[in-house]
């Protein structure tokens, strides 16, 4: 028994040494992240809604792009964060990696949802349909379900270490979908337009539209980072509450 409690004490030290530092650092970082996010999104909205011109083909509907494209980028960015954190958790057992992966999932899922719905709202006037079962749209829908499945797995297994390991494997297996989404517009026939920013030869989009897009994308990315910090802080506290409760019932 003495050996057991020694082990848990050292485990506890290992588990809380890094999170304690993270809590202190993130507390100082958060106001800057939140402030910068607000400024970038405010400027982005001004550029997107007031300053940028309508498209010569798509008219005003091009303004949906400034929401749709950053959301879609972040849906994949979020999954890559989740998968990288999951790999780190599985290989190095870093106590924060697990927490980062779990915290990124709901944010990524929300942006996937936004990308799907805003895409639908853009598709209706421009393609004449809300939805088609083509490669890009379907692989994005699968991404959404992967996020939901990942979150459901966390919610199903009560013990965080076991839940984390199972969820990490799911996240890594699902990461095959990310390159499929990216190349879906190249590999298969689709209504969706090909990549016009991250492409060989540079962006194929007018500066007057690229600027608001990039500002919004940066704003959304900082929003993601800020929220990730908040959610990680909440998750660290949740685990602390769990440990304290277990310690109390053991008496």
């Amino acid at each position, binding site marked *: *028994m*003495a050996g057991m*409690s020694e082990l848990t004490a050292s485990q506890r030290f290992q588990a809380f040494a890094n999170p304690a530092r993270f809590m202190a650092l993130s507390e100082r970082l958060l106001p800057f992240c939140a402030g910068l996010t607000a400024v970038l999104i405010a400027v982005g909205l001004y550029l997107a*809604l*007031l300053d940028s011109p*309508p498209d010569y083909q798509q*008219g*005003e*509907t091009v*303004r*949906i792009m400034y*929401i*749709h494209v950053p*959301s879609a980028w972040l849906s994949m960015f979020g999954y890559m964060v989740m998968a990288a954190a999951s790999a780190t958790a599985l290989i190095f057992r870093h106590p924060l990696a697990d927490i980062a992966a779990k915290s990124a999932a*709901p*944010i990524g899922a*929300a942006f996937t*949802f*936004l990308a799907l*719905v*805003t895409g639908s*709202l*853009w598709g*209706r*006037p421009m393609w004449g349909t809300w939805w088609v079962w083509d490669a890009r749209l379907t692989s994005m829908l699968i991404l959404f379900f992967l996020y939901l499945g990942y979150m459901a797995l966390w919610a199903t297994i009560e013990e965080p270490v076991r839940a984390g390991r199972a969820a990490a494997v799911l996240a890594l297996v699902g990461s095959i979908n990310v390159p499929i989404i990216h190349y879906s517009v190249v590999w298969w026939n689709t209504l969706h337009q090909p990549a016009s920013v991250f492409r060989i030869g540079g962006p194929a989009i007018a500066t007057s539209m690229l600027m608001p897009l990039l500002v919004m994308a940066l704003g959304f990315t900082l*929003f993601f980072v800020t*929220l990730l910090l*908040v*959610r990680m*802080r*909440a998750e660290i*506290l*949740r685990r*602390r*509450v769990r440990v*304290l*409760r277990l*310690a*109390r019932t*053991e*008496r």
Partner: protein
Amino acid sequence: MQGFLEMGGYAAFIWPAYGLAFVVMIGLVVQSVGDFRAQRRLAGELDAGRAARPRAPARSTGPDA
């Protein structure tokens, strides 16, 4: 102003896209910050409870000790 709101006849598609993004993003913030505050309160209560209570006897002793 009227012209801006009409969005060249596409208001029914553009404003819902922006509105939904607003609702989803604000919803995420409210849920995340609320969760953080709830966990911080719980952790604070448990810490205070632990500090207030006298130290429990050694765990290895049996219930009859």
